């Protein structure tokens, strides 16, 4: 892939939103969505992820898949910060409806190179109202 293909026609940066509304393992959507995010990170766009409804189950801490014979892909979320994917919006109401809190989720961080490599949290728990405005701010919305 040539360098010039990495940017849009006018070289503009678009706001890409990956919407995750499905739980992992029962179907492949969550895993293959994450594969898109990891590849997409090379394109230098303004990337966000939204976790709404059952999508919040993708981020639970302590996933162990030995017994089901499917690879545990949750550690890959920890790599997102290294790819400059630092905005993971998790909907508060979706967590609450499912009996979860922020403490049940993985601790995902990124290092801010503009701020002495300070470790910052990637997960931003937001209300449904805040999620609405995040969604309406996007240029490209990919759902899986």
């Amino acid at each position: 892939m040539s360098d010039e293909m990495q940017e849009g026609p006018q070289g503009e940066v678009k706001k890409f939103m990956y919407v995750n509304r499905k739980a992992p393992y029962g179907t492949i959507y969550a895993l293959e969505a994450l594969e898109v995010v990891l590849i997409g990170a090379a394109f230098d766009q303004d990337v966000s992820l939204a976790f709404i409804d059952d999508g919040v189950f993708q981020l639970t801490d302590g996933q162990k898949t030995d017994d089901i014979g499917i690879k545990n892909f949750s550690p890959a979320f920890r790599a997102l910060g290294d790819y400059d994917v630092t905005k993971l919006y998790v909907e508060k109401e979706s967590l609450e409806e499912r009996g979860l809190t922020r403490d049940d989720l993985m601790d995902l961080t990124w290092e801010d190179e503009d701020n002495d490599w300070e470790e910052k949290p990637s997960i931003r728990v937001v209300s449904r109202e805040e999620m609405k405005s995040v969604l309406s701010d996007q240029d490209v919305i990919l759902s899986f």
Partner: protein
Amino acid sequence: MKFAIVVNEGPYTHQASDTAFQFAKSVLAKGHEIVRVFFYHDGVNNGTKLAVPPQDDRHIPNNWSALAKENELDLVLCIAAAQRRGILDEKEAGRQGKDSNNVIDGFRISGLGQLIEAGIQADRTVTFGD
């Protein structure tokens, strides 16, 4: 206006591919451009040349293939999703040491970067799935 279309389900089980096909035809009929149709997840199964549906049913892979030929569309099957599901073109089959291939004319196999690139180039990206 430039459209990118994403198809996330295979033929027949879900309506997604049919809806995407009707949508694509309308996009073209209205004089818009389709920069790419990207097939992901089970959507890669739309690119098989081995489907033999009943005579009185629509032939989804053939229909996409014909639409691509008539309109010079770029139909891309995601390579990672295709490899998982046994969808291989001649080149990939050779590379993987397989003795057969099954991608129909009009489709090509390429990487996920093609999806992101389409999203960047198109004015609108529309996803069809389940």
